[in-house]
C-alpha cells in the first residue's frame, strides 16, 4: 500500500512537476508555431507556414465553398491551414446571389473579408411615405429628410427616419407656403435649415429649427443685407449664423434679431466645429474664433503648393477633421488639406465625407471615387506640416457618369453611391478591382441617403416618387 508521508508527497510533487514541465516545454512551442500558421505539409512532408482566410458576411450563416469542397463551418469563419496560393471561395445562402472571389493566401498572413454583403436576389424595399415627391434633401448627421413634390415651402415635409414620422414643414395656412425655394442651406449634424426663396425683387430667407416641436420658423430676411456666398453655424450655437459675403462676414443672432454686418472682414472661407469658428482670412492664415467672440487663436498659415492657392473669388469651406487637420474645399471643385500631399483633388469635386472612426476621407467627382486615409509618418523638419500624419490617397472607382453622392457602408468595407438615377453598392476587395452591384433605380434628379443604423438606404421611388427604404441586410 502506498504510504502518503511528507517525503512521499514531496516526491509526488516533484514527479508531477517535472512531467508537467516536460509537457509544457513540448506543447508551448508547438502551440506558438501553430499560431503562426506552421503545419506539417502532408504532401511534401515538411514544415510549412500556412495562411488563412477570414470571412464574415451580412447576413451571417452562409455556406462556404473552398474550391469545390463544402467547408464545415458557416460564415463568419476562419479558413486556416491553407497552403500559400490562390483559392476560389464561394458563399451561398438561400435567397441571395452567390458571392465568388479568388483570394490569394500568403504564408503567415490572413486575407480578410469583413462584412461581405450578400446581394439578395430581390431587394426588399419598404415604402415609408407615399409621395409623390420629386425632391429629397437629407440633413447630414440628423434624423431628418426634407421632402417635397414641388419646390414651394408649403409643399415641404419633414421625415424623421429614426422614428418613422412624417410631418409638414409649415403649419396650415402659413404665409410662407407659397415661397418658391431656390436653395436650401444646412450644416452637418444641425437640425437648423435655411431656406432661400429667390424672387424678382429680392431674396427671402426662412430659418427653421427642426429640432424643436413644433418647428421653430423665423423669417430672417431683414437681417440679411447682401446675398451671402456662404453660411456657417453649428449645432452648439444654432441661433448664431455666420454669413460671408464678398468681403466680409456678418454674424446674425436669430434669437435677438441682432445683426453685426461686418463682424469679420477679409474672410475667404469658414467652417465650424464645436464652439469654434474656423476662418481663412485674406492673408491665407487659418485661425479660429469662438462664436461668442471671446477667443481668437491663430492656427497656421494655409500651405501653398507649387505656388498655387485658391482663387480669392472662390470662397473656401473649411472642414475640421482632427486636432490640427483641415480640409479646404471650393465651389470650383478643389479639395486641399494642410497635411501632405496637400492637394487631394484639383478640380471637379462633387462631394466628400469624412469618417472619424476609420479616419478615412471619401471624395468623389462625377466620374471618380477615391478615398484618403490618415496615416502616421516621420515628420521632416523642413516641412511646414503641422501634423505628423499624412493622407494616403487611393482611387477606387473611375467608371462613373454622374456620381452625385457616396457613403461609407458596412463599417467602411463597402460604398453606397448614386450615379445618375441608380444606386450602386461597391465592395472593397484586398486585391484586384472592387466589385460593384446595382441595387435599384431612383427618381431622376433626386438625392439618396444612407445610414449605418440599420444599414438603410432612403430614396425616392422612380415610379411614384414615394419615399422608400431599402436595407442592405434584409432581415
Amino acid at each position, binding site marked *: *500500500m*502506498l*504510504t*502518503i*508521508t*511528507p517525503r512521499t*508527497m*514531496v516526491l*509526488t*510533487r516533484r514527479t*508531477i*512537476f517535472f512531467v*508537467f514541465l516536460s*509537457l*509544457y516545454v513540448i*506543447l*508551448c512551442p508547438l*502551440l*506558438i508555431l*501553430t*499560431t*503562426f*500558421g506552421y503545419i506539417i505539409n502532408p504532401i511534401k512532408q515538411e514544415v510549412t507556414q*500556412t*495562411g*488563412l482566410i*477570414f470571412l464574415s458576411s451580412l447576413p451571417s450563416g452562409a455556406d462556404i465553398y473552398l474550391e469545390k469542397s463544402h467547408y464545415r463551418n458557416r460564415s463568419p469563419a*476562419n479558413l*486556416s491551414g491553407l497552403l500559400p496560393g490562390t483559392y476560389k471561395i464561394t458563399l451561398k445562402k438561400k435567397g441571395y446571389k452567390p458571392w465568388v472571389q479568388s483570394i490569394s493566401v500568403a504564408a*503567415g*498572413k*490572413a486575407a*480578410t473579408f469583413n462584412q461581405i454583403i450578400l446581394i439578395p436576389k430581390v431587394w426588399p424595399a419598404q415604402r415609408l411615405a407615399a409621395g409623390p415627391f420629386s425632391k429629397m434633401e437629407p440633413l447630414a448627421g440628423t434624423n431628418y429628410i426634407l421632402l417635397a413634390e414641388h419646390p414651394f415651402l408649403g409643399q415641404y415635409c419633414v421625415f424623421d427616419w429614426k422614428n418613422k414620422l412624417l410631418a409638414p414643414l409649415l403649419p396650415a395656412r402659413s404665409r410662407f407656403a407659397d415661397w418658391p425655394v431656390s436653395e436650401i442651406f444646412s450644416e452637418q449634424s444641425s437640425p437648423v435649415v435655411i431656406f432661400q426663396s429667390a424672387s424678382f425683387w429680392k431674396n427671402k430667407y426662412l430659418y427653421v429649427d427642426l429640432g424643436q416641436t413644433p418647428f421653430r420658423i423665423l423669417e430672417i430676411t431683414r437681417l440679411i443685407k447682401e446675398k451671402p456666398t456662404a453660411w456657417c453655424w453649428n449645432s452648439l450655437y444654432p441661433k448664431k449664423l455666420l454669413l460671408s459675403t464678398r468681403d466680409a462676414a456678418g454674424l446674425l443672432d436669430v434669437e435677438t434679431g441682432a445683426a453685426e454686418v461686418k463682424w469679420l472682414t477679409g474672410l475667404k472661407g469658414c467652417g465650424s466645429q464645436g464652439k469654434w469658428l474656423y476662418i481663412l482670412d485674406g492673408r491665407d492664415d487659418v485661425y479660429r474664433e469662438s462664436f461668442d467672440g471671446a477667443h481668437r487663436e491663430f492656427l497656421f498659415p494655409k500651405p501653398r503648393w507649387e505656388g498655387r492657392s485658391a482663387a480669392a473669388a472662390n470662397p473656401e469651406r473649411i472642414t475640421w477633421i482632427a486636432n490640427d487637420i483641415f480640409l479646404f474645399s471650393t465651389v470650383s471643385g478643389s479639395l486641399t488639406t494642410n497635411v501632405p500631399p496637400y492637394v487631394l483633388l484639383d478640380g471637379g469635386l462633387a462631394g466628400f465625407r469624412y469618417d472619424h472612426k476609420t479616419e478615412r476621407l471619401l471624395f468623389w467627382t462625377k466620374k471618380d471615387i477615391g478615398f484618403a486615409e490618415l496615416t502616421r509618418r516621420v515628420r521632416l523638419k523642413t516641412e511646414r506640416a503641422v501634423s505628423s500624419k499624412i493622407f494616403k490617397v487611393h482611387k477606387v472607382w473611375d467608371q462613373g457618369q454622374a456620381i452625385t453622392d457616396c457613403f461609407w457602408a458596412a463599417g467602411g468595407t463597402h460604398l453606397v453611391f448614386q450615379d445618375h438615377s441608380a444606386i450602386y453598392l461597391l465592395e472593397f476587395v484586398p486585391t484586384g478591382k472592387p466589385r460593384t452591384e446595382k441595387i435599384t433605380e431612383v427618381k431622376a434628379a433626386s438625392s439618396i441617403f444612407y445610414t449605418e443604423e440599420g444599414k438603410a438606404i432612403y430614396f425616392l421611388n422612380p415610379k411614384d416618387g414615394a419615399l422608400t427604404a431599402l436595407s442592405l441586410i434584409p432581415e
Partner: protein
Amino acid sequence: MDFNYSRQNLNRPEHILERALEILPGALSWSILIGAVVTSIVWPLTAAVFTIAFILYWIFRLVYMNIFLVLSYALLFVDRSTDWMERIAVIDRREIGFKSPLLARPDGTLAEKISQSVYLRQLRDLKKSGALPPQSESLYHLVIIPAIKEGSDIVEPGIRSILAGRYPARRIFILLALEDRAAAPVKADMAALQKKYINGFADFWVVTHPGNLPGEAAVKGANTSYAARQARRYFDERRIPYANVIVSCFDADTVPNPDYFSCLTYHFMITPERTRRSYQPIPVYHNNIWNAPGFARIIDIGTSFFLLVESTNPSKLVTFSSHSMSFQALVDIGYWPVDMISDDSAIFWKAFIHYDGDYQTVPLNTTVSMDIVEGQDRWQTFVHIYKQKRRWAWGVENVPIVLRAFLRAEKISWRQKIAYGYKLVDSFVSWATWSFLLALLSWLPGVFAGKEFASTTVFYIAPRVSGTILSLSTIGIFICMAVSLLMLPPRRRENNFWANLRHGSEWLFIPAIVILLSAIPALDAQTRLMFGRYMEFWVTDKFRGKGKGESAKD
C-alpha cells in the same frame, strides 16, 4: 543566526537595502502589468505569443494545484475519524513496532487503511530517529487568544470547543491576551469568561497588554508576545519545561475542531524535531458561512484551498493565521514580531532564520474554523473583506526582511535560499498579477491591433488557441466547486440539489471576485510597501449576524 527580524533600528546601509527590497515586489508586479499593456499596444504579435505561453503555463499550474487540492482533501477526509488519543497512547506505551495489536487491522475502510499505513510509517520513522517524545502526560498546551474589540459572543465558542474537545482540557492553559485600549464591556466580557471557565482548564487567565510600550506598534504580535512573556514567567514558577509546552496562537473567533489538540499533540510527539516545527491546521471559515454573501464565501473557501494545496508541500509551508508551535522555539526566537502586522507568517521566517534553515511547518489534517468578515450590508462586507485581504497581502513586508537575512545567513544553503526566496517573491507577485494578466491578455492585443498585425494568422488563431486552453480551466473550477461542496458544513435548512447548485454557481463569478478581492488588495499592499506607506493594524470587524448556522441569507 542572530538576526533582528524587523525593519526598525537599521543602520544606514541596511536601511537602504531594506528599502530597495521593499520596492522589489511592487516594482515587479507593476512592471509585469504595465509591460503587458505596453507590449500589447506596441508589439501585439509578441503579446499574443506571450499570452499563449502564459495561459498554457497557468493551466498546467491550475491542474497541478487541483491534483494536490484533491489529494490534500482526501488526506483530510481520511483522517477525519482518526482516534488521535489512541495513537498518542500507543506512543506513550512505546508500542512502536509491528506487533502492536492496535496496528493489526485487516478490516476497515480504504480511508482507514490509508490512515493506518501513514501512521505505521510515522511510527517507524520516529523509532528510527531515536528522538522519542516526552509522555503526553507531561505535555501542556498554551492557547493564546488575543482580543481587542471582540466580545464573549465571538470568543466564547472557541473556548467551548476546546473544552469539549477530545484532548483533556486539564492539560490546556487558556490565555486571553487583552489590549489595554479595549473597551470596558470587552474587558468585562473577558473577565466573565475567565470566571466561567477557569475550572475547566489547567488555568485560565487574562493578561492585559499595556499600550504604547516602546518599540511596539499597534499590532497583534505585540499583544501576543507580551502575553507569551507572562506565560513564560508562569511556567518558570511552576518549572514546566518549555519544550513540553505547545503554544497555539488563535484569532479571537477561532473555533478549533474537537480533535485539534489531540491531532496536534500526536503530530508533536511523532515529529522527531518537534521543537523546531510549527504546526499548521487547515483554516476554514465555517462559523458564519451561511450568513455571509456568496462572494465572501467563495473568496474564503479559496483561502482554505490555498492552504490545502500548500500543506502538500511541507518543506515550503509557511504558517498562516491560527497555528501552533513549540513554546521552546517561541522563546528561543524572541516571540512574535512586535512591529509587524503579518505576525503569523513572520514567526515562521523568524524561526527559519534563527535556526539557520532547520525549521519547517508540519501540516495538520484537521481544521480550525473562523469567521468570514461581515458588514452590516453587502457593500460593507465587500469593504471589510477588501481590507482583510489587503492586510493578509501585507505579508509582503516579510520579503525584504527575509531576503536581507538570506544575504547575511552563512549557514543556510544557497539552494534553500534560492528556493525559499523565489517562492516568497513569486507567491506575492503572482497573487497581484495573474488575475489581471488572464483578464487582459486574451483580448488586449486584438483591441490595439494595427492593420499590420490584423493581417497575420496570429491575430486570428491566437484568440482561438487561448480560448481553447482557457476553456480547460472550467474543469478546474468544477473540481473546486465539488471540493467546496464537500467541505462545507451542513446547512441548517435547504440542503438540496438546488441549494447546492446555487452555491456551485457562485464559483462562476470567480474571475471577477479574484480580481476585486484578491489581486487588487495584493497590488494595493505591495504599492504601499513600495512607497513606504506602512499599514497600521486595522482590526477586522467581526460580528455574528443572526447566530451561527441560523437562517441562511441565501
